[in-house]
């Protein structure tokens, strides 16, 4: 019987053939915590009687969600992470290094066929480079730091064959939003999503991260793609250890296979307060916008900033709008400077903030006022998500956010390309 990518990766990590539905104890290749989850993991590690992390080279702690610290309580939790990282000799990415889900692939911590956990739900991101990566809680992270292993249920898989050629002004974010709308917020709960078809192969690896990132918005445990030539070439210079990509068998058994033609897809927008409340941008054009955010683990990579800069070059952000841009990592920031992207954004009126998650998670760097409307490249628009339950958040691609920032209202980016 053929196997899915998820079944093959779990088999390789527990030393026997496995099928969906089985419970396994598996070796974890890499594990990560961020500043919202690591402090509880450190506390759980101590409560478990932990003295030494099993393999410090497999652990990274990232200070990104509230970085730099806006409050003394946060500062003390950051200090706790620094102290633990120094004591246990585990990797620490401190303030300014970037968003965990941009950093881990960029710094070579994830490779095809590997099993990765992160105490952050958007850990599904690394599925784009063929890693089975999934979000866990702090105590699971602590258990894995201590033992190097964790128990898992091998998930069933949902295969999505994405057909057609994306039109001008339509990006991987529009695909991710469309899929969230189509499958709904729990349409893939407990499942591994396998993305395939010419839409995926036509996208860059950076663009693919956006889609795997949002797999969790449909409830998925992972969002896997195959390691094609683009992935292998993207990994050159980043990963030097040997790895074994997992490709699905032709006769793999899926919970469901769905084929979707995205040839006619237009830019998509998620309306408040649900990620799956998705509509074509044409239907919400004209909605006034007070704040626009470009960045986050979904869309803060170089290509995203470049698309925004192309739209903003020679234009001005509307005086009614605050445009906040957070590059997803220091490396993205540096490359964006070298390519003139930062200049284009700042000249157009953008406020650049420290690489990190801030605005998206409501910790700082752009909490909206009562009654205000925000358009953001993030992955969640829940009521209160950005720190104010009386604000309204729309989600869209970097192009749609940039165009909307210029016009002062939600705008189809194809008008400005």
């Amino acid at each position, binding site marked *: 019987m053929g196997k899915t990518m998820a079944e093959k990766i779990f088999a390789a990590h527990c030393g026997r053939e496995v099928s969906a539905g089985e*419970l*396994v*104890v598996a070796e974890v290749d890499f594990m990560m915590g961020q*500043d*919202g*989850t690591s*402090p*509880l993991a450190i*506390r*759980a590690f101590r*409560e*478990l*009687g932990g003295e030494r992390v099993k393999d410090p080279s497999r652990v990274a702690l990232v200070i990104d*969600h*509230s970085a730099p610290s806006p*409050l003394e*309580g*946060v500062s003390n*939790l950051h200090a706790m992470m620094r102290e633990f990282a120094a004591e246990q000799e585990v990797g620490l990415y401190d303030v300014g290094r970037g968003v965990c889900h941009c950093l881990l692939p960029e710094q070579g911590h994830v490779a095809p066929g590997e099993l990765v956990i*992160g*105490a*952050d*739900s958007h*850990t599904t991101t690394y599925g784009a480079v063929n890693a089975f990566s999934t*979000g*866990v*809680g*702090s*105590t*699971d992270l*602590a*258990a894995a730091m*201590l*033992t190097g*292993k*964790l*128990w898992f*249920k091998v998930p069933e898989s949902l295969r999505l064959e994405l057909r057609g050629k994306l039109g001008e002004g339509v990006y991987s974010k529009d695909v991710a939003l469309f899929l969230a709308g189509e499958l709904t*917020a*729990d349409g893939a*709960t*407990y499942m591994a999503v396998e993305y395939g078809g010419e839409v995926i192969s036509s996208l860059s690896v950076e663009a693919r991260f956006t889609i795997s990132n949002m797999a969790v918005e449909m*409830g998925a*445990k992972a969002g896997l793609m195959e390691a094609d030539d683009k992935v292998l070439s993207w990994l050159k210079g980043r990963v030097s250890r040997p790895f074994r990509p997992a490709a699905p068998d032709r006769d793999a058994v899926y919970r469901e296979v769905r084929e979707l033609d995205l040839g006619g897809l237009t830019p998509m927008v998620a309306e408040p307060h*649900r990620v799956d409340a998705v509509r074509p941008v044409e239907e919400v054009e004209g909605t006034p916008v007070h704040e626009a955010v470009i960045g986050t683990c979904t869309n803060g990579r170089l290509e995203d900033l470049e698309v925004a800069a192309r739209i903003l070059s020679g234009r001005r952000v509307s005086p009614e709008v605050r445009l906040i841009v957070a590059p997803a990592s220091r490396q993205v920031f540096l490359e964006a400077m070298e390519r003139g992207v930062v200049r284009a954004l700042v000249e157009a009126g953008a406020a650049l903030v420290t690489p990190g998650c801030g605005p998206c*998670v*409501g*910790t700082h760097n752009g*909490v909206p006022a009562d009654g205000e409307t925000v358009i953001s490249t993030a992955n*969640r628009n*829940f*009521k*209160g*998500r950005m*720190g104010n*339950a009386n604000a309204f958040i729309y989600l869209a691609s970097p192009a749609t956010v940039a165009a909307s920032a210029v016009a002062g209202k939600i705008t189809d980016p194809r008008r400005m390309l």
Partner: protein
Amino acid sequence: MREDMVLRGRAHVFGDDVNTDYIISGKYKFKTLDMDELACHCMEDIDPAFASRVQAGDFIVAGNNFGCGSSREQAPLVIKHAGVGAVLARSFARIFFRNAVNKGLPVVECDTSGIQAGDELEVDLAGGKVVNITRGTEMDIVPLPAVMMDILSEGGLTEYLKNHGGFEL
């Protein structure tokens, strides 16, 4: 099986897709590890009075996909520290479900459609039944995998790993 695997309390009813930001907002959870302090803000953005209304042993009752969103373990911890005895839902998001068991908060998957706010419920975790005492109805609980039942009945993952030294599947 411990005696406290039979729970009794009143229902607080919520809808579908209650996400972890609603359970405990990001604006609070990054500041402190004091779960009693955070528990004052439990469900604040969708039901500001919940934290002051909830009585020890009460149940949160919800529809589909309870706990969707982030991996924050603060979510089940805050519910537990608010005094809630168990969460009953038609379905759960997977990370929340696992975190709840890991922190010893009973999560009960069952048909919640007939439960109304204020109903008195008895939840028999070991027996796999929920009895709605107010309405005289009974619902089956979707059973947990054995390892999760063990983790839950031993009080959480920390206690389980201390007892067993590793995972026993």
